[in-house]
């Protein structure tokens, strides 16, 4: 078992192996992702019952909640990939981290936009300083910081290392930021209506949500694979196997 | 410049240099700088790294000094990897890069004091003497920004006179020095080698007067 894991780790470190194997894996993520997203969307928008308090406007949770979950998860994954790169000098990990950043930021942005759209009919304004939305906004700032830093560094190596260090510092800070924002929020405006209640949710509403969450995860995996493949090609562009690939394309 | 205060050579340093590179290879941005380079720096050696610009002289110097770990192969101090005995190694070698680490608002004496702070055995008198030898006597109270580039370089080089290390690693130390300064530094290098010290140096300056000189040519292999 341990040996098998070790073998997998060493193989994952080889960009060529990853590039070849990911081409075969990709459909196994992309097709179920499309299925889940279609089924979840249709079910959630057309068949799930309306909320007794919020009416139909609650249906935006089918986009908002999965996007928000992934935005946070993606940051952690980016930081962990960065950590693997810093500790074991595994270049693939750095490229995965670089691939995650813009996707995580996009999900974060999607969660913010859907939150604002939901806010208009519910609160009557596009933006309310609600605890979750504020945390999400700060998370977006964290993503911006990492991406701006990666862009500003001169070499690939320093860019990857700087991004990794900053995302690890951010990862340690996220719980502190979340806690302080929640604390601040209860102090200033105890919100009466929340986009997602922790309380019970009817089964007919919950199941499509779960399907959407799974679909978003699969979509995320698909996107990461595709972007990492691009990163591999770019960084290995001077290696012979990539040159051969390009020759074959021509 | 003449040596006003000859150093007591027998007590100058307690250990001798035993630094070796084993199959050192380094590439930068997909370009191989050097490959499978092996050499030793022993007592009395003066080794000049030669080669055109961009051949990797500074890179090799820095990884021999332990400042750069991004290479293949190993650098050893007394048969131990320099990274695992770095504290020891750092006290036995003096590294002066082409950046002089001079703070311009401080006086030469204050700068020198900071440079030698890792060697508590160096006395304040020795610092004064060193400044006198690099002909900066009388400039002790003047901030370095009012000194010329050559004078600032001499402040940095004055460390050679006071830190008791067997190995000197010097990156282009002749830059900005005038004729007298060049002659003084050449004499100092010869003296250090004669008393059993070792020098690893990059320089476009010909050091052929010193018999112990060996050259390592970089930038020949593809």
């Amino acid at each position, binding site marked *: 078992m341990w040996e098998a894991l070790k073998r997998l780790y060493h193989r994952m470190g080889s960009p060529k192996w990853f590039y070849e194997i990911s081409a075969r894996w990709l459909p196994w993520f992309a097709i179920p992702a499309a299925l889940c997203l279609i089924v979840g969307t249709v079910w959630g928008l057309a068949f799930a019952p309306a909320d007794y308090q919020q009416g139909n406007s609650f249906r935006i949770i089918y986009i908002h909640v999965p996007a928000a979950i992934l935005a946070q998860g993606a940051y952690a994954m980016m930081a962990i990939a960065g950590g693997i790169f810093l500790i074991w000098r595994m270049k693939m990990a750095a490229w995965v981290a670089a691939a995650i950043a813009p996707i995580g930021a996009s999900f974060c942005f999607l969660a913010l936009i859907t939150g604002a759209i939901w806010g208009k009919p519910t609160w009557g304004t596009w933006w309310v300083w609600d605890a979750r939305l504020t945390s999400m906004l*700060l998370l977006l700032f964290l993503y911006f*910081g990492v991406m701006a830093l990666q862009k500003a560094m001169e070499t690939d190596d320093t860019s990857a*290392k*700087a991004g990794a260090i900053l995302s*690890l510092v951010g990862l340690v800070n996220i719980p502190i930021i979340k806690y*302080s924002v929640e604390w601040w929020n209860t102090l200033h405006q105890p919100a009466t209506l929340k986009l997602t209640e922790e309380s019970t949710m009817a089964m007919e509403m919950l199941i499509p949500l779960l399907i959407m969450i799974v679909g978003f995860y699969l979509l995320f995996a698909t996107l990461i694979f595709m972007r990492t493949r691009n990163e591999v090609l770019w960084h290995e562009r001077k290696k012979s196997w990539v040159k051969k690939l390009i020759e074959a394309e021509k | 410049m003449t040596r006003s205060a000859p150093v007591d050579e027998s007590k100058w340093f307690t250990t001798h240099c035993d630094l070796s590179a084993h199959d050192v290879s380094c590439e930068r941005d997909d370009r191989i700088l050097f490959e499978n380079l092996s050499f030793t720096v022993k007592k009395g050696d003066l080794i000049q790294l030669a080669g055109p610009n961009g051949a990797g002289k500074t890179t090799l110097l820095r990884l021999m000094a332990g*400042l750069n770990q991004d290479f293949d192969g190993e650098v050893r101090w007394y048969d131990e990897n320099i990274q695992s005995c770095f504290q020891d190694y750092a006290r036995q070698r003096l590294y002066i890069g082409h950046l002089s680490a001079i703070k311009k608002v401080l006086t030469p004496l204050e700068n020198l004091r900071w440079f030698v*702070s890792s060697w508590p055995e160096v006395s304040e008198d020795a610092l004064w003497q060193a400044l006198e030898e690099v002909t900066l006597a009388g400039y002790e109270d003047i901030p370095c920004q009012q000194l010329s580039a050559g004078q600032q370089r001499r402040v940095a080089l004055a460390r050679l006179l006071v830190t008791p290390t067997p190995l000197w690693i010097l990156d282009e130390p002749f830059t900005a020095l005038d004729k007298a300064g060049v002659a003084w530094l050449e004499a100092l290098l010869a003296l250090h080698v004669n008393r059993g010290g070792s020098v690893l140096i990059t320089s476009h300056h010909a050091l052929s007067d010193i018999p112990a000189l060996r050259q390592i040519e970089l930038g020949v292999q593809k």
Partner: protein
Amino acid sequence: MSLVTATIKRDLIIAARNPGEWLNPLMFFLMVLALFPLAVDPDPKFLSKIAAGVVWVAALLATLLSLDALFKADVEDGTLEQWLASGESLYAMALGKVFVHWCISGLPLTLVAPLLALMMNLPDDAYAALFFSLLLGTPILSLLGAVGAALTAGVRSGGLLLSLVILPLYIPILIFGASAVYHAGIGMEYAGQLGFLASFLCISMTLTPFAVAGALKLNLSR
């Protein structure tokens, strides 16, 4: 004297000879405070309500302004290279640098803030809270800021980038610092907020020097 204490001493001397280093952030602090009554409303009642937050925001911005220079000179003149060459722990060096930075930015801000808060009509009960929250909070600003300063030290025009990188990390300090002052002003207990700041200070004091040390190594030219 070790290189760390020598560096602390040297940087304090430099700050004493370059008063701009610590005076400019203070003047900036004062000017930012003056903007709020001018832009919003000079009514004393209104000012006293926003004073806590405004003073904290201004302190945060002033610290941010002074951070850009924290490691820049050391990277450019070769001082960083000498730290690494010395074999002394970069962790200790990072703490030393942060200590100096706090002495010339956070400490003066903490001392001056109560005076400037008078102009903002801060309620009488809030002055102790303002002083203590800044005393605990400004070192965290320096510690977290040092990570950003070390990451961006080699980047040209890194000042704006530094703000982007660091500001989100400052949010918890801002929330708890400002709320301590505000709560004190309306006669409520504020020990909890100070407790949060104290524990955050302990965490950052142990963890951030690792990140600073790692980030500093990125700035060595190869």
